[in-house]
């Protein structure tokens, strides 16, 4: 018995010591994790109540709660080409365009995607798609690439434009009017729903990165070094809007009630302009880096994305409406 006690004690001690020195557990690895603040987002749209963001290495993210949380979406083939643009074609149908002339198409509001165009020979990017009616779609991009689709983006045909291979950066339309802006002050205008295109006499020699209609024949275009231009006659004549900074501007969001636009760009810069072309507010959103895109949430808040992904360090952003 006494033997047992002493040996038992030693055995228990040995067991505990072996337990203490056995390999200590590692932290569980969360390998699927992506830091959404460190992925460059190139475009962001609002589709009903959801937000869809696209960007670096083919990242497509979707949020159903106004940007609080994001999910990666799935697609059949994983092509690591960076996406530059996402746009809504019709109910449920979204198109994402990107480098290597990649076009991805979704029919379920961005949950699943399939590739409809991909060219690895040239390695040059498409910079956007735009649809006036849900069936006809335009795709535009680098070196004057311009494609048209008559079946909501399933098949594409190249179209020649009266230009010299300038990059086409953005496109917008209002009724039968369509405007494409691009490199070296290029503004292409079509008044017959895209049948014929006519370049405007250059009013600016830098690149224009964005264009949008503000309604009532008012248009706005923006580009390098804080250059913003306003047109009140369907984009025929443009006047520069003076803004206090010289930051390049890359994306915009329209106010929900159409009363104005917020344009965002390098260094978190923003400029808020009403539909008459008056500058309402300018400044910098701190800590967000270069912004590429913005949307207006249903409650009027601005949500931005860019080099620092879709993580908003401050929810205290400006409201677009009512300014």
């Amino acid at each position, binding site marked *: 018995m006494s033997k047992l006690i002493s040996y038992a004690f030693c055995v228990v001690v040995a067991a505990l010591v072996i337990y203490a020195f056995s390999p200590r557990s590692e932290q569980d690895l969360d390998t699927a994790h992506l830091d959404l603040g460190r992925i460059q987002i190139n475009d962001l749209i609002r589709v009903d109540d959801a937000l869809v963001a696209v960007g670096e290495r083919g990242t497509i993210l979707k949020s159903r709660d106004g940007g609080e949380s994001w999910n990666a979406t799935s697609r059949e083939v994983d092509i690591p080409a960076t996406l530059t643009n996402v746009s809504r074609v019709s109910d449920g149908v979204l198109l994402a365009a990107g480098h290597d002339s990649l076009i991805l198409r979704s029919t379920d509001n961005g949950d699943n995607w399939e590739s409809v165009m991909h060219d690895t020979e040239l390695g040059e990017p498409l910079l956007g798609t735009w649809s006036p009616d849900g069936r006809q779609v335009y795709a535009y991009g680098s070196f004057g690439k311009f494609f048209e689709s008559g079946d909501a983006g399933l098949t594409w045909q190249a179209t020649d434009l009266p230009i010299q291979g300038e990059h086409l950066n953005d496109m917008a339309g209002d009724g039968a009017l369509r405007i494409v802006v691009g490199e070296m002050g290029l503004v292409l205008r079509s008044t017959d729903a895209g049948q014929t295109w006519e370049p405007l006499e250059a009013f600016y020699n830098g690149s224009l990165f964005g264009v949008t209609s503000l309604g009532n024949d008012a248009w706005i275009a923006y580009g390098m070094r804080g250059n913003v231009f306003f047109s009140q006659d369907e984009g025929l004549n443009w006047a520069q809007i003076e803004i206090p900074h010289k930051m390049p501007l*890359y994306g915009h969001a329209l106010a929900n009630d159409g009363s104005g636009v917020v344009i965002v760009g390098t260094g978190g810069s923003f400029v808020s302009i009403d539909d008459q072309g008056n500058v309402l507010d300018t400044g910098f959103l701190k800590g967000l880096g270069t912004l590429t895109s913005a949307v207006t949430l249903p409650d009027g808040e601005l949500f931005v994305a860019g080099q620092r992904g879709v993580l908003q360090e401050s929810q205290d952003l400006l409201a677009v409406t009512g300014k």
Partner: protein
Amino acid sequence: MSKGNRLIDRTVEWSADRLLAWRKPLLALFILITIALGYSATQVRLDPGFNKQIPVNHPFMQNYLHYSEIFSGANTMMVSVRWKGEGDIYNVEFLDTLRKVTDEVFYIPGVRRASVRSLFTPDVRYIEITEFGFIGDVVIPPHFSGTPEDLAQVRSNTARSGQVGRLVANDFSAAMVTADLQEINPETGEQVSYVDIAKQLEEIRTRFDNENIEINIVGFSKLVGDVVDGLIAVMGFFVLAFFITAALLWLYTRSIKLTVVALTVALMPVVWLLGLLPLLGLGIDPMSILVPFLIFSIGVSHAVQMTNAWKQDVLAGSSSIEAAHGAFCKIFIPGALALLMNALGFGVIMLIDIPIVHELGVTACIGVLLMIITNKMMLPIIISHMHLEPGAGKTNYVAPGEKHKLWWRLSVLATPGPALVVFAVSLVLLIGGAWKSRDLVVGDVGTGAPELRDESRYNYDNANIISRYSIGLDVLSIYVEAQGAQQSEACLDPDVMRAVEEIDFHARSIPGVQSVQSVAGMGKVSISGNNEGNPRWAAIPGASRGLQPGSTAYSSSHGLVVDGCETMQILLFLANHEGGTVANVVDEVEQIIANVDEPKVEFKLGGGNVGVMAASNEAVKKAEVQMHGALLLSVALFCWLTFRSFRAVLCIITPLAIVATLCNAVMATFGIGLKVATLPVLALGVGVGVDYGIYLYERMQHELAMGKDLRTAFYEAMCQRGTAALFTAFTMSIGVGTWAFAPLKFQADMGILLAFMFLVNVFGAIFLLPGLAAWFHRSKSLVSVKVAPNAPTSLTGLEQT
């Protein structure tokens, strides 16, 4: 007892005779050796080498050593100028200071001038894409005069320079000057002294620090400077520990002579060791500087045991020589055994495959083995010449027939009942300890340089820089070999570049990674810059043609690629280098690399200081169990050879194992990580801690052999050895405990741990050992009773405590 043991006893006695017969020539010889080695000790040099901390056989480190010759720029220093006043850095006072600091850094001898970068250096340019194409110019305009327009110009140039997060803080509260150091100063042809550079950096700080400006400096050279300063402070602790020990010794012995003798003899192996180091071509580095300290402490411990035995004999009426003879006979076996255990403890440290630890092991081993000569041979000779002063020893004197009250009360633990209580307490402690020890972290705990304390100036600076910039000094390099590339230049091969991009893309998301630099990332910026600066162009295209506009990024001047991109590196800047972060980042990076399906490239880990840490943490992790296993097994073997009893081995080993576990728990509690600096301490602690058990058990065995019951045997052992053991445990704990205040963090950690090990080991030996012995003894006597006692072990007449 067995015949073998009697043979040992006879040999020991013969040795004692010879030793004392030749005591004069031997003493002269020892003194000569001491003088010679003492002279040699003045040649000992400080040898803090970065490469010594590298576990050279780890695959990471073989890559690191190979590629660190290809990619330079590892030895970077950063001087950050922080604006503490109103607003941001765009004001005249700040920019003026930044310019002056840039100049000062530029003129530090040893700095590679071309590598100095700040907003004021001509190679830092902004690029603006305008209507007319690129405009590139220096950030600070040449005509800068501080007008509001100029300041606005600087502000917008900086934003366009791509330096925000690098040379300029993310929140515009600071800007830095970076520079690389050369190993050889080209002007003098001499090795650059880090200490001198650290001094000059400190001068810059003193010059420019004011109420609006704070200077933060980090870099390996500054760190070495601060560590060397810390080392000098450690010398002060040595002196402090010496005087504390002396005072305690005097209180204990009440004899100036004995105090002086014990201190002298304990210093002897330190002198011999320091003298031998230059002869062996070794130096002292920040880690092994503690060894002389430790040797001194152990030396005191053994000297006290020997002088104590001698004093007891002298008080019992023997002459000095007889008493020295007796003390030698009694102490030599357990003492030499204990020293061998110490040496063993230091020896197993060498299982950790890191040169600096090997050196520590070798140094400590030599030191302890020297002690067998100084403490076990020289000391008896010295005390044989000595006469005890009349006052000494009368204190705490227990007359024959009386009992020392405390020890007699304590000896109740050597009876089965109370022993059970001790068992229960031990188990509770062990369960708690085992549970807590699971939280032990391999690697560093806390941020900043692990050598220094969190609140040290260097770590304050480091934290300041890390929180303001996207880069820092905690870097993991991933090396990339692109051998199978189709293009003339691997950077133009989209498969290669996309593979690099994939690593960059995923590594950025790893928790703990602040930012990533790769040729893919640089390439994207260039490509975008060539296309109107549009960020949507910042991508790696799937064709070689699309990659060409990025060519400015593929230059070797950025330090990311060489040889036309055949060899590249990807840099991961980490927020800190805590053990958990490092392990996690390395694991995730390995997984990311495993997922890259691209035969043209091969990714290899891992350089940078984080690569070194990952490798040494793995080496430590691997060595931990091996080391403890080897240590306990060899202690068990030695004990068995000496005592020829399996139960004796258990009596000595069990408390040790418990203490080792508790020590892990203490580390987890105090936030001390298991790393190169602390793992050896555990081995030292066990090696030194086993002394107490051996001294006590050896005495008990003799007493039992003379037919005494276990309680009495333990009581006698306590009287003769226990007091001395307890005294030395306290003395050594206090001595090493003073390190807890050392400016160097790892020395403080080592001090706390050693103090804990010394103290708790002695408790294990005096509380748990008798209990175990009691229960083992109850079933079957531990030692067969020997009626005819032999001379040296029969001196039981007088006990003095």
